[in-house]
C-alpha cells in the first residue's frame, strides 16, 4: 500500500482523537470536585465514595454480575456446541444451523427485545424479571461464542481427529482428549465475550426486564435520562476498567480469536 501522505496521517490521528477524547472527558470529570461536568475545579474521589454508598447502584451491579456469569456459562456451552456442529456437519438439515445461529447477531437489538417481550408475556405468560433477562442474554450470546469456536476449529488439521479415531478413541474420548484441549482458548474467549456482552447490554434488557429487576446499564440509563452527574462518570470509569481487563485477558488466551482476520 502506498498512499502515504502527511495529510492522511493527520486525518488518521484526528479520527483516533475523535474516538478517545469523549471517553477521556468522562474519566477526567469523574475526579472533578464539582457537581457539574463543565469545568475543572479540583481533584476528588468523592464520586467514587458516593458510588459505593449507593445501595440501588450496588444492587444493580450485583444483579448484572450474577446475570452475566450465568448467561455466559450457559451461552458458552450452547455456543460451543453450535460452533462444533457448524464446522463438523455442514450438510443435511444442519445446513440451516448457521442461519439460525448468526441471524440474532446481525439483527438490530430492538427486534430481538420486542419479540422476546411478546413471547414471554403472550405465550409463556411469564412474569418479567431475572429469568427473562437470562434467557434473552443467552439467546444473543450463543452466536458470538459459536463464531469464535468455529474460527478456532476451522484452523485445525482434520487429520488429528481421524488419527484419534483410528487409534480406537470413541467420539467422547476424541472430544475430551483432543478437541477440547485444542479449542479451550476459543471457549474461554467466547465466555469472556458473552460475559462482556451480557454485563453491557442495555437495549434487549430494557424490554425484557419488567419493573422489579434492574441491571447496571438500566440504572445508568435512568440516571442519565434525568440529569448529568459525576457519579455516572465514576461508574463509567470503573466499567471501562473492567472491560479493558477482560479484553486484555481474552487477548492473552486466544490472540487469533479476537484478531480481525484479513
Amino acid at each position, binding site marked *: 500500500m502506498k498512499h502515504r501522505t502527511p495529510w492522511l496521517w493527520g486525518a488518521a490521528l484526528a*479520527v483516533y482523537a475523535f474516538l478517545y477524547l469523549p471517553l477521556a472527558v468522562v474519566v477526567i470529570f469523574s475526579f472533578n470536585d464539582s457537581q457539574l461536568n463543565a469545568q475543572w475545579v479540583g481533584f476528588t474521589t468523592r464520586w467514587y465514595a458516593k458510588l459505593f454508598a449507593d445501595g440501588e447502584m450496588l444492587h444493580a451491579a450485583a444483579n448484572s454480575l450474577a446475570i452475566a456469569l450465568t448467561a455466559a456459562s450457559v451461552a458458552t456451552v450452547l455456543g460451543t456446541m453450535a460452533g462444533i456442529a457448524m464446522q463438523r456437519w455442514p450438510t443435511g438439515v444442519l445446513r440451516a444451523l448457521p442461519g439460525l445461529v448468526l441471524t440474532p447477531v446481525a439483527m438490530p437489538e430492538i427486534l430481538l427485545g420486542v419479540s422476546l417481550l411478546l413471547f414471554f408475556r403472550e405465550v409463556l405468560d411469564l412474569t418479567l424479571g431475572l429469568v427473562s433477562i437470562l434467557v*434473552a442474554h443467552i439467546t444473543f450470546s450463543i452466536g458470538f461464542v459459536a463464531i469464535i469456536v468455529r474460527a478456532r476449529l476451522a484452523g485445525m488439521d482434520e487429520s488429528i481427529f481421524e488419527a484419534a479415531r483410528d487409534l480406537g478413541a470413541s467420539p467422547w474420548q476424541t472430544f475430551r482428549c483432543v478437541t477440547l484441549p485444542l479449542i479451550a482458548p476459543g471457549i474461554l474467549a467466547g465466555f469472556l465475550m458473552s460475559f462482556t456482552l451480557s454485563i453491557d447490554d442495555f437495549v434487549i434488557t430494557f424490554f425484557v426486564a419488567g419493573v422489579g429487576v434492574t441491571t447496571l446499564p438500566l440504572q445508568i440509563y435512568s440516571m442519565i*435520562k434525568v440529569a448529568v452527574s459525576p457519579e455516572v462518570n465514576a461508574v463509567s470509569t470503573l466499567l471501562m476498567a473492567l472491560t479493558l481487563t477482560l*479484553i486484555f485477558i481474552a487477548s492473552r488466551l486466544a490472540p487469533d480469536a479476537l484478531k480481525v482476520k484479513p
Partner: protein
Amino acid sequence: MTKRGLRGDLTRWLVSLPPTVFLLVFFLAPTLIMVTASFQNPGEFGGLAPLFAEGQARLTLETYRFFFGDWIYAEIFLRSFLVAGATTLICLIFAYPLALTIAASPKRHRDLLVLLVILPFASNFLIRVYAWIILLGPAGLLYTPIAVIAGMVYVHLPFMILPLYTNLEKHDPTLLEAAQDLGAGAWTRFWRVTWPLSLPGIWSGTALVFIPVLGMFAIPELLGGTGDILIGNLIKEQFLESRDWPLGSTLSLLLTLAVLALAALSAWAASPRRQRS
C-alpha cells in the same frame, strides 16, 4: 448401519440439538409470533386480544391500514433512512483515511493500531452516548439532529473502520506501483485502483452501520429533541408506553423486512463475483 455410524449420528444430534432447540424456541418462535401479532387486535389492557374467540380466528389488517393511512409513519421511516444514510456516509469519510493509514503502516504495528480502534468501542454503549451529553451540553447542541448524528457516528464508527481495513490490507501493493510507473498521479491511483478494489469492504461496513442505526432508539431519546424520533422510538413507544402491541409488531416486522432487504443488497453488492464482471 454400522455401529460406528449409529454412534456418529447420535453424537451429531447430541451436540447440535441443544443449541438448535434453544434458538428455535427463543429466537425463531418469538419472531414468528411477532408476525401473527401484527394481524391481531390489541388487548383491552395492553398486550394482545385473544387470537381465537367464539371458535373463530380474530385476524385483522387494521395495523397495516393504520400504518399506510397516516403520513406520519412514512415520514418517520424516511427520516430513519436519512439519518442512517448520513451516519453511514460520515462514518465512511472518517473511516477511510484511518483504515488506509493502518493498512499502509508496517505489519508489526497493524495489530496494535486495530486494537486502538476496538478499545473505546468496548466501553458500554450508554457511556459512549453519555460522553456526548457532557460534550454537547455546554455547546448548546444537545437535543438537536446534529447531536443525534454525532452520537450515531461515534457509536458505529468501528463497524466501518474494521471491514474497510480488512479489505484494504489485502490489496496487492504492486498494483499501485504499476499505476505509478504508468504515470498515474496520487489521486488517479486512489480513484482508479484503491477505491474500486475497496468497494466490497465499503459495502460490508455500510451494512454494519446502516442496519443498527435504523433500529436505534436510545440515542434519539438521550441526545435528540422531540422531533428527532426514529423507527426504534416508535416501536418502543408502542410496546412500553401506548401499549399497542399489534402496531408495534407491524412496525417491527416492516423494520425486519427493510433490514433483510438491505442485508441481501449489501451481500450482493459486496460479492466478489459481481466485482470481477
